[in-house]
């Protein structure tokens, strides 16, 4: 892992004029609107733009209403998950100064999976409504545990945190597979959950995780100026009256809350948390206030488009959004590898 650490931010926050921000904002908003529209338009039953507009404005027949409105929950979940994963990735990449940092590294995915598996196997939990709570508990508990192990013995560098996440993920993976393989029913719950999908979930999944997502988001917004100061180096930040340790701790807590909320609601989804911060940084520069704002627009856009692609590609079957993001994100990463400078 040490070979990967590379500073993501330059020493100074790049100056960007208001005109550029405005143009970027308009671009992101238009794309998000298109993504939202596409998400309610496309599916196993294709509907036309005029149909969708008729339903949205309160018209349309019964059948049409059912079809279009059934796409509302997954669209809302896509917005929430994309936002959460994107901002969690921004925070983690900023704090660990590792361009490859993403929410999965904190052990969130493994923790949520392990909790679901344990609850279905030993406590008889079943159904979406129950497992979502277990996923949330497991994700948060693992996040805290990784943090405790990573900072054990004082210090607590981000590299340690990521390694602690990897270790804990491996041990939890063994547990998950052992339990799942010896109990067919648990195995079914697990294999359907672990692909990561926006479909088959209702609004209650959204309401269940919303408080955690909101808390994480609020914390991220509050921390943005501190993170900006820290981009100049811990010493400079300290001289500005900011405690780097506290900002790091709070930032990782926010990242944990956000990714736990997203993972509990829709399952593990790869690459959104990794890719969106890079795209946004290319667009608006290193200012964390702008990064968070634009990630909140770009994350949902990316996830919704990926979901639409998954719905259209194998029609009338459906490819889960987690598979789509992996197959879009991984090649992008492979192309980026060639441009890595002097990594050894």
């Amino acid at each position: 892992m040490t070979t990967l650490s590379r500073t993501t931010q330059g020493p100074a926050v790049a100056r960007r004029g208001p005109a550029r921000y405005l143009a970027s904002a308009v671009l992101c908003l238009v794309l998000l609107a298109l993504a939202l529209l596409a998400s309610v338009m496309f599916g196993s039953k294709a509907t036309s733009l005029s149909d969708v507009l008729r339903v949205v404005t309160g018209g349309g027949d019964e059948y049409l209403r059912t079809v279009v409105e059934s796409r509302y929950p997954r669209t809302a979940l896509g917005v929430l998950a994309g936002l959460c994963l994107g901002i969690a990735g921004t925070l983690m990449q900023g704090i660990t100064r590792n361009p490859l940092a993403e929410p999965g590294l904190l052990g969130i995915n493994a923790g949520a999976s392990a909790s679901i598996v344990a609850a279905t196997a030993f406590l008889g939990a079943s159904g979406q409504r129950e497992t979502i709570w277990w996923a949330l508990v497991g994700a948060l508990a693992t996040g805290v545990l990784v943090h405790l192990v990573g900072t054990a013995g004082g210090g607590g560098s981000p590299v340690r945190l990521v390694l602690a996440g990897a270790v804990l993920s491996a041990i939890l993976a063994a547990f998950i597979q052992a339990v799942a393989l010896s109990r067919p029913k648990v195995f079914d719950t697990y294999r359907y959950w672990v692909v990561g999908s926006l479909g088959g979930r209702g609004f209650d999944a959204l309401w269940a995780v919303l408080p955690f997502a909101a808390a994480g988001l609020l914390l991220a917004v509050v921390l943005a100026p501190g993170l900006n100061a820290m981009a100049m180096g811990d010493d400079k930040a300290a001289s500005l009256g900011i405690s780097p340790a506290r900002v790091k701790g709070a930032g990782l807590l926010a990242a944990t809350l956000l990714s736990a909320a997203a993972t509990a609601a829709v399952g593990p989804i790869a690459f959104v948390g990794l890719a969106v911060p890079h795209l946004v940084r290319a667009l608006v520069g290193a200012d964390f206030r702008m990064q968070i704002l634009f990630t909140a627009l770009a994350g949902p856009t990316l996830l919704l488009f990926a979901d639409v692609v998954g719905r259209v590609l194998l029609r009338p079957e459906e490819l889960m959004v987690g598979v789509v993001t992996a197959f879009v994100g991984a090649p992008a990463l492979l192309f980026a590898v060639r441009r890595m400078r002097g990594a050894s």
Partner: protein
Amino acid sequence: MKTAERTEVRTGTTAAVPARPAGRVLVRVGPRVAIPVRRSSLIAAALSVLLLLGAGVATLTMGRLGIDPADLPSALMGEATGKNAFVLNRLRGPRLVVAIATGAAFGLSGALFQSVTRNPLGSPDVIGLSAGSGAGAAAAALFLPGVVPVSVGALVGAVGAMGLVYVSTGTGFRNPGRLVVAGIGVAAMSTALTQYVVYAVERDKASALTAYINGSLSARSWDDATVIWAVLLVCLPLAALLARPLGIGEMGDDLSTGLGARPDRTATAAVLLSIVLSAGAVSVAGPIAFISLTAPQIAKRVTRSGGPQLVMSALLGALLLVLADLAAQQLPLFDDLPVGLYTMAVGGAYLGYLLLKEWKRPL
């Protein structure tokens, strides 16, 4: 192998300051080859062999179906009958023989790779070989069921994943940083494909596939044993040839170029050899986790010396896998789980222990 050993005579009489590198023993093979070996390494290797023998005997004798220890010598001489013959020739014999060679192949593979990347996390499973083989197995099970055996799918997947990593780094296998990042990408794609297949096929098939993808040694045949031993016996001498240049390479590219080595070529050869070993092991046993990562690390700590500990890594890899498989067969916890789960749990715990130990020192 006939070896004549000769302890080097130490000049000087006072024992306080040895005049030569202490504890070197020359291992001679014929009149031309003489390999200096540290005595502590030799002892460690002998101990590992003994432990491996013990674990092997335990594998054959323990449990309800075990061969009575009193009958074991005669059974091994080919006089086994009835139940013993079945256990030895069908049930546990091939499984044990496969476990030894597979573990050794993983260990050796990891030692070669870590020596090149100079990073304990740089092992073939980290750069996507395991995930690739899993995806290959899954794709074979979904798209060509019954046409392509799952193990062939795994082999194709492993080689394909490595090819993809090779192409996408742009510098081949020489830049460890790029290698690891490309590995992450390839692994992510492979895992997504595997998960989709496990989601899409029916439960029994998905369950069998998952067991295979975790790495399992149950129901191995003598054919499997032949395959992996052939791979191992071809690769071992080649690895031995690389040991010295690799040791020099660990001092850094500049210094080793100055010493007349060619670090680039050595690195590429070592990585290719490492991939062949891992791919061979994966095709008979599935991607068993953490052996290639931990065996070289333990070898380094046991022998307390620098340089790639190729032989020790292979021995320890075999020992680890045989022990894990013994646990998989005998622990009453779960019924014959894939051995890969045990190595994953133990390897993860060991890695955690290493980290905690490292953390006592400031980074």
